[in-house]
């Protein structure tokens, strides 16, 4: 498969009181079209920063990001970002939130149809007219996923989207997210600090390491879906991942 997204020698500094601190050092990897990548690492390893650079929300000091061979330096509709919090607009209904990014691109009727379809996919069609404050955490995150999908992005960037949910909701959303990915074949970069989540979701797991943030290992995870993290097949892989978390 041709390289669809290329991350080339990304280095990033943060300015704090004592001077610049290196947040990311020489990050290199490629992502194929349709691939589901997990960026795994402990906190402060720069995984979220890296995702935000890919999303165009932060600027790197050096290196570049190529999407289909084109360098990108700002945010764009072809990259859909899903944050840790749902970040729904409280003054818009669920349906209007889903249509937020494509409003003006389509007519009102079509916008509504797209909204309905996407809410159907994420299992929220009954809540189209509800306010975000009426949704539970898991439902709000589903709505956020629908909103990101509405713009029909080439890549979905997910920043620990299930980390704030309770265990059952998280498992349910992981399963639903997998089937969504399998049916849409969007390229996904999924940031997580949860080894089990990376095992369940990632085709490849990129393990990052802190101070400065760098890639420690890229581990292929060829097991078929659906996966269970307690499967004996995973024991070696899990151990490898856990060890790679150590300094």
């Amino acid at each position, binding site marked *: 498969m041709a390289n669809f997204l290329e991350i080339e020698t990304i280095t990033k500094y943060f300015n704090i009181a004592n001077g610049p601190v290196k947040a990311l050092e020489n990050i290199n990897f490629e992502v194929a079209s349709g691939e589901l990548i997990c960026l795994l690492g402990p906190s402060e390893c720069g995984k979220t920063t890296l995702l935000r650079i890919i*999303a*165009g*929300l932060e600027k790197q000091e050096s290196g570049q990001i190529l999407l289909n061979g084109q360098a990108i330096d700002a*945010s*764009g*509709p072809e*990259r*859909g*970002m899903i*944050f840790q*919090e*749902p*970040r*729904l*607009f*409280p*003054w*818009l*209904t669920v349906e209007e939130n889903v249509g*937020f*990014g494509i*409003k003006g691109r389509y007519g009102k009727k079509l916008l509504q149809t797209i909204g309905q379809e996407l809410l159907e996919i994420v299992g929220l069609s*009954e*809540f189209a*007219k*509800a*306010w*975000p*404050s*009426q*949704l*539970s*955490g*898991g439902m*709000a995150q589903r709505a956020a996923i629908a909103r990101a999908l509405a*713009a029909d992005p080439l890549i979905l960037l997910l920043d620990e989207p299930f980390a*704030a*949910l*309770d265990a059952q*909701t998280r498992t349910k959303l992981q399963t639903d997210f997998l089937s969504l990915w399998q049916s849409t074949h969007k390229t996904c970069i999924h940031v997580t600090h949860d080894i089990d989540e990376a095992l369940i979701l990632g085709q490849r797991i990129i393990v990052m390491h802190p101070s400065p943030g760098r890639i420690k290992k890229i581990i292929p995870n060829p097991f078929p879906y659906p996966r269970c993290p307690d499967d004996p097949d995973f024991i070696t892989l899990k151990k490898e991942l856990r060890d790679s978390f150590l300094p």
Partner: protein
Amino acid sequence: MKASANNEQEKPITLTGAFDKPTYKQILTKLFQGLAIPLCIFVLWEILSSMGWLNLYLVPPPSQIWDRLLTVAGNGLLLKHIGASLYRVVCGFSLALCLALPLGFLLGLLPGVRGFLSPTLSFFQQIPAIAWIPMFILWLGIDEASKIAIIVYSAFFPIFLNTLHGIASTDSKLKEVAYTYGLSRWGLMSRVYFPSAAPSVFIGMRLGLSYCWRSLVAAELLGASKGIGYLIQEGREMAQPDLMLVGVLVIGLIGLSLDFVFRRLEKKFLPWQAKVDTKEVPKWQIS
């Protein structure tokens, strides 16, 4: 949007966008609750008066006030004075809106300018509108202009400050979402900043309206030929405490009605706020 994940179970889930409308019974209960204390006071007051425990000149009984109210309402005098006062409020409040809203938006969006204007505005904010009355009369004459200027002055600050605060406190996380969808500058303002500031703007307008209603009466007490404040002044000059009390009660009632109208407007324009409103903060806490 704070982490709403924790209360997964507690949240009641309704399928319609609108929050549940109050039933007839709920409305009646609310009405009863609101009227209970004033009614008790009036009844007690009337009983005390009829038993001769109150000085009838200093504290005329409710029945006498009511009679006076019917008289001034019947001969059209009351309506004329209310009309005059309301006209001033409408003019002054609209003018204040025209000044405070754009300035609030502008300063909310441009933190750089804020540093230049804030100290000066804070200085003026500390001066009660009433303190300006003599100067305004000197500059603008005893007619309408000086009274409207006082209203503008008192309504300006709550509207301006709440608008400024509403814009400046727009959630940067939501701004980021808008940015990832590549919204234009205008799109960001109209689709993120404005709706986000709207509840704050409404609070400012409600406060502004109540401030200007109060200072208007003060202005009318000092020099006017019509208006509720003048009505009270007239009661004083003719030694009619019941007329003075009619004026006082009417001021309260109109203020209450104006606030009620504004709250209804708020519910209509900000339906998503309904949830917040059920935890109603008593108004005296906000102001």
